[in-house]
């Protein structure tokens, strides 16, 4: 099994896995604290329509996924601000419409169904050198912006009215966060797929929340847990010849279950 560690394709996959894991783990903390899991799932699935359009017109699927994820994220926010419908209702509408659109578009793209399936479940072992470069650039931009705006994001997550009274332009920061989230999701889809992308975002952060005493600990633990999950998942997938994305997610789920026991052990009696 150790031999696989020397293969360039595995090393490339490992590098991208670690970068993506850390990126998703950081954004995931705010997604979990703001109860945006289903929202992230919806924009992840919506990205499938963008990928289908990109495949149809022969453009890099990342840009299609990013554009459509953003379109749906802004669409949901926009409709929510002018209607009285609840967020989960709007998510249901946009989610189903986007997936339906993706399925219909695929029928216009003969021969590409296999590609679309690969975006459903992803394949981290198909990473190229240019994927590494793209991941580094996008992750650096997202993390840079997050570092600059992170405190405002946390203040808004704590209490939006208080943040607004303190002069934080809440709407602009909300849009910025959606942009970062859409970019990270679009980037991760290629490797873990639409179905599992939310898990990569949510599970490490939720695990960290179970064992953290402060927000800075939660960010730190989330990144560490994500990196351990990606590493363990990739090695297990290589050893057992299982699909990489689902194996990574199951590894993080094992850590999540363990964190529940840790939380129970430390709960006041």
């Amino acid at each position: 099994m150790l031999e696989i560690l020397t293969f360039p394709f595995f090393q490339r996959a490992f590098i991208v896995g670690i970068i993506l894991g850390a990126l998703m783990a950081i954004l995931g903390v705010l997604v979990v604290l703001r109860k945006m899991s289903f929202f992230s799932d919806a924009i992840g699935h919506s990205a499938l329509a963008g990928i289908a359009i990109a495949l149809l017109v022969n453009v890099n699927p990342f840009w299609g996924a990013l554009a459509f994820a953003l379109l749906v994220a802004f669409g949901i926010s926009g409709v929510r601000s002018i209607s009285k419908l609840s967020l989960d209702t709007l998510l249901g509408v946009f989610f189903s419409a986007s997936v339906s659109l993706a399925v219909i578009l695929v029928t216009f793209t003969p021969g590409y169904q296999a590609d679309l399936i690969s975006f459903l479940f992803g394949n981290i072992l198909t990473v190229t050198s240019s994927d590494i470069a793209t991941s580094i650039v996008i992750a650096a931009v997202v993390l840079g912006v997050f570092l600059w705006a992170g405190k405002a994001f946390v203040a808004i997550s704590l209490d939006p009215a208080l943040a607004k009274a303190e002069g934080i332009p809440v709407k602009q920061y909300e849009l910025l966060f959606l942009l970062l989230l859409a970019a990270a999701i679009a980037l991760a889809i290629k490797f873990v797929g639409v179905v599992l992308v939310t898990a990569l975002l949510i599970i490490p952060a939720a695990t960290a929340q179970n064992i953290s005493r402060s927000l800075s600990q939660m960010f730190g633990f989330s990144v560490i847990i994500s990196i351990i999950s990606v590493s363990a998942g990739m090695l297990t997938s290589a050893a057992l010849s299982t699909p990489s994305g689902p194996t990574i997610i199951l590894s993080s789920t094992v850590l999540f279950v363990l964190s529940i026991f840790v939380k129970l052990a430390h709960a006041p009696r």
Partner: protein
Amino acid sequence: MKAVDSNTPALAVKDLSVVLDGYPILENISFTIPQGSTAAIIGPNGAGKSVLVKSILRLIPKAKGEVEILGINHRNYRKAAALVSYIPQYLDFDREFPLTVEGLFALKSARPLGMTEVERERMHTLLRMVGMKEHLHKKLSALSGGQLQRTLIAYSLMDHPKILFMDEPSAGIDVQGQETIYSLLERIQKEEHLTMVLVSHELDIVMQYADQVLCLNKELLCAGIPKKVLTNEILERMYGTPVGHVAHGHAKH
């Protein structure tokens, strides 16, 4: 920031009206509050007290009127925001939110991570002032109502505001705790040279601590020194029923 002329009112509100979901909530409210004073906004439930404060702070839109905060029109709220702090009636946060008292204060820092030594010193001074120094590493969710209120008061003073708006400072606190919160606010007001605008429904507290009272029930029914303007007639108009008064002999002079 340019120093504010001491004659400029801390707050000047003119003909402010607020309509929410088609219903008029506030109509033609006008008043001024001088710098360095404590003003209490009183009125029955649903009188529009919180709405007035939120409208001043641009948290909800107004239908018409003008508001100036230390001479700055609140249309430029981001400029005025540096001069004000606001403590809402309830902090609307999830009990699982893992923010500690120290983490909360770090949100006020311009540094992307942590805070500067000067900011840390200010945090310690303020927490000591409100008696919360030993709770620095506690999660906000682990604090009692009174402890959270004290923490928020200290947090609100972190960047040296000129005006502090508080919506029901004693909500969710027992009577003994209320007394302590108001005594604390009075002490802080003197030490930090603040203007305070409090929303309250407790007449005794208003009589004891406020320099100026604004009686509200959709419209402004009275404005002035509490023991002069809080007549039984005004109270009856405000609450719609006779209210046993008021003069407990410990009004602020």
